[in-house]
């Protein structure tokens, strides 16, 4: 299939979304002058269809659907190299966080599901146990992603080295932790937080 040409018009531009990204990330995409230092230092740029500088450019042009439909944002490792090297102090790692949150909330079209699944299980573990239960994290991930044999050979080795706990006890202050999750949900429902 031939690639669609990118059309710039008021129909394809959505500046409101970009303002939301700027509010969430506390940084302005308008400061970027496309020097490309972020993409030059990005360890994950080779895995992305839109490297970091292009993500910012697309945001400047209000073309956010293109970003969310791809997997670029889910391949960002949050190593913060881009934010460190930006001459205009665009905090690109925070922009990536904001984009992931908006994509996560919208449950919109994204090519990436594994990273999202891993994130979801990680947060569920906190809500259920307080601390990470690595064994459960890996096991549930493999089942839910259908990769039953992934890292299967590693498991027994880790257990003999005492690196994988078979059982995890829950924190004593689980009710406090649950309250943090539920209060944030409540705040969002009331429109007090993005």
């Amino acid at each position: 299939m031939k690639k669609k040409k990118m059309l710039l018009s008021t129909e394809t531009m959505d500046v409101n979304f970009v303002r939301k990204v700027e509010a969430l990330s506390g940084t302005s995409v308008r400061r970027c002058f496309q020097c490309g230092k972020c993409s030059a230092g990005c360890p994950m740029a080779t895995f992305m269809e839109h490297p970091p500088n292009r993500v910012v450019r697309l945001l400047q042009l209000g073309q956010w659907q293109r970003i969310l439909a791809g997997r670029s944002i889910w391949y960002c490792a949050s190593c913060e190299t881009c934010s460190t090297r930006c001459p205009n102090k665009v905090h690109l790692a925070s922009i990536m966080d904001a984009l992931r949150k908006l994509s996560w909330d919208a449950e919109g079209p994204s090519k990436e599901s594994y990273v999202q699944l891993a994130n979801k299980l990680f947060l569920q573990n906190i809500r259920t146990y307080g601390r990470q239960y690595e064994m459960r994290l890996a096991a549930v991930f493999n089942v839910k992603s259908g990769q039953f044999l992934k890292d299967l050979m590693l498991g027994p080795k880790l257990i003999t080295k005492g690196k994988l706990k078979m059982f995890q006890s829950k924190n004593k202050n689980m009710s406090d932790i649950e309250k943090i999750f539920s209060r944030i949900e409540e705040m969002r429902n009331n429109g007090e937080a993005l």
Partner: protein
Amino acid sequence: MRVAPPQLHELKELRNSINSMNSKNSMNPKLTYAYYPGCSLHASAGEYDLSTRELFKALNIGLTEVPDWFCCGATPAHNVDELLSLSLCAKNLELAEKVEGDLAVACAACFSRLKFTQHTLEENDVKRKQVEKAIDAPVSLDGKVKHLLEILAGDLGLERLSAAVNKPLSGLKVACYYGCLLTRPPDVPNLDCVEAPTIMERIMEAAGAETVTWTHRMECCGANFTLSRPGVVIQLTNAILDAAKAAGADCIMVGCPLCHGNLDIRQKEIEGVYNVSYDMPVFYLTQLVGMACGLPPHKLGLDALMVNPMPLLKEKQLL
């Protein structure tokens, strides 16, 4: 008026005066810290926890674990929900306030998130109010969060550290690997220079080891993609191991359980994929410093490492 850049000898004098200021602190009573181990240290990085406790005992530094600490949310939380990440960290900081002393953190990811939370809440009143509502308590940002590296090189001081070294790691060539989160982003962790830190090298010199100059000490290992996208991790980590080998290092030193997991646990797999042989032991900083302070292998959890370090240590006569 133009100011001349500082000369090398001036910098050395400055460092000496800072060191002597640090050594004056030795008059102070015993150093004590609240301790936030983080989830990994209670599971896949048990040897980091063990060696930290044993090293601090040997150096006569007090360490009290924060009661009921819980997960800081690490990368997955701030990836999709910054408010949740800030709130989880703020609650943990509140728990840590109840224990005497600054907060000692071993894991680079926990360290980064806790520092980032303090930094963000100090600067952003809107987020601060939201977090205070979420944890139903005022946020206190007075407590200091310190990585183990800062405690060893700063609070204890390199002079006192080298005085405690009784089995110097002579002849051991160490590649110090910082990874991402110990120094980045700028202005947040304030551990050392953001692009060219030397804190690990200084500690290793105090322990009597040699350090190598290499290219990949600040490159990302892929971190938590180890669960969701191991292929990515294998590619990035291979480049790091390759660079360490090319620089002539005998071993790698890390201060992060995720870096360790990728470099050590996945090393055999990487060797298989790329058909190479690295055989590169990966130590936690507390294991190497502990060895230099004369602690026996069983107190440092050396047997828990996936790449067996014993042949190397025997060859260098460090056992």
